[in-house]
């Protein structure tokens, strides 16, 4: 059993919770490899998948996870208009809850909304990303990807690179990576860094970490959340922060590249790296993250509802 019924923030997860989720994910990964990719574990349970912000990957990942557990899932997507947001959310939730759902999965464009929802609904809630705040299942699937590749966490060197100010993935990853004993470096230009990060050990160029890191974690440039221009030019971004083929080659043996997707090709990661073949192909773990994401979400949903 998990220590809390809802997963809103990575801090809700104890070390035992994390290990329980990662261990269970192995069983669910095996199920996803079968011809019949379905077990009856959650037959009769109903899950609401509420996305108040556009998302294809995370939404479908949760949906597939629920279906492989035989739960019924209803999808509700709505782009949130700015001012009626508060009202529309509560109305929507009332409607959904009247249908007797057992679990609410929710994504919202505003930081903190999911926490408020958790206080209202009376059933477990999973945060599928709230604004610039947190995205705990992404951090869990990132941990699982690292575990599958390295079979340990302690002492691994991770560099998280890019847009921190707009990234919930960065916040959640940072919390869980450090919790598991990994050494995390932050690579970001000052203008893409939130104030509370400024006292940490921050590097400004990916070349400072490329050779020593076991994991290079590239963050997505969150143009959709940038209401002003945060960076002078793509050329400058490329010079200091992008992962290109030259940098990929300089990475140490056994090291990997991760990215939460979708990649802005030519910005965070170049086409050459995305399409690389041969022995370097193995370094790019982005597709594994997606596959493992389904297993992690099955584990989380199962552990909450069983």
């Amino acid at each position, binding site marked *: *059993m998990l220590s809390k019924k809802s997963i809103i923030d990575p801090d809700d997860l104890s070390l035992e919770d994390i290990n*329980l989720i990662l*261990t*269970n994910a192995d*069983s669910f990964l095996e*199920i996803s490899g079968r011809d019949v990719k*379905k*077990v009856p*574990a959650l037959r009769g349970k109903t899950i609401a998948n509420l996305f108040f912000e556009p998302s294809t990957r995370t939404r479908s990942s949760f949906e597939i996870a629920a279906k492989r557990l035989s739960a019924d899932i209803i999808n509700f997507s709505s782009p949130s208009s700015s001012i009626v947001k508060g009202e529309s959310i509560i109305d929507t939730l009332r409607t959904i809850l009247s249908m007797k759902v057992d679990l609410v999965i929710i994504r919202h464009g505003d930081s903190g909304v999911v926490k408020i929802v958790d206080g209202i609904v009376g059933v477990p809630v999973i945060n599928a990303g709230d604004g610039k705040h947190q995205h705990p299942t992404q951090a869990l699937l990132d941990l699982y990807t690292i575990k599958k590749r390295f079979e340990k966490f302690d002492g691994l060197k991770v560099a998280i690179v890019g847009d921190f100010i707009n990234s919930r993935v960065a916040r959640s990853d940072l919390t869980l990576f450090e919790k598991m004993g990994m050494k995390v470096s932050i690579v970001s230009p000052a203008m893409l860094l939130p104030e509370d990060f400024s006292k940490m050990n921050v590097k400004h160029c990916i070349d400072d970490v490329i050779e020593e890191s076991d994991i290079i974690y590239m963050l997505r440039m969150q143009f959709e959340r940038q209401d002003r221009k945060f960076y002078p030019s793509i050329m400058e971004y490329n010079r200091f922060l992008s992962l290109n083929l030259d940098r990929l080659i300089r990475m140490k043996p056994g090291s990997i590249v991760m990215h939460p997707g979708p990649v802005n090709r030519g910005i965070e990661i170049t086409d050459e790296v995305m399409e690389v073949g041969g022995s370097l192909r193995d370094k790019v773990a982005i597709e594994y993250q997606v596959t493992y994401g389904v297993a992690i979400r099955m584990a989380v949903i199962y*552990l909450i509802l069983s």
Partner: protein
Amino acid sequence: MEKAHILGEDEIYRIIRRISHEILEKNKGPENLVFIGLQKRGVPLADRIVENIEEFEGVKVKSGKLDITFYRDDIGSDIKHNARITDISFDIEDKNVILVDDVLYTGRTIRAAMDAIIDFGRPKTIQLVVLIDRGHRELPIRADYVGKNLPTSRDESVEVKLKETDGIDSVIVKGKE
């Protein structure tokens, strides 16, 4: 509290040898047989039968392991949620599947196991091996090969230990704690 010692190492050894012969006799040889051990103590029992068959017939038949946690019908009640590995890396289509478990009790585990197996394909037959049949069935399920019939009351519990999982071969009946 230990009530009675039922089986020891020698008895279990002989039972598994006998059941191995019975399986071969009933299925007219090892062809088309596959074994699936139920986690956790069905797995070493299946392995022992497979070893015996290799010794008797010179053929190594395939064996896998199955965890039925996600097929249980008692979700929400007090069970451990740490699922063990399922590994059935062979085709079971049209095979005679020999399902192996340590204790047959209500039959609900076997019901779940059959559902799980059928998700992997359509076997020709499913046959059931158990070391102990303790009665009290709640479903119309029976074993094809039984090590020992052991009449028990519902208050008692049957504890099977195997070398591979517990360091010792033994079956004991325990009374109400």
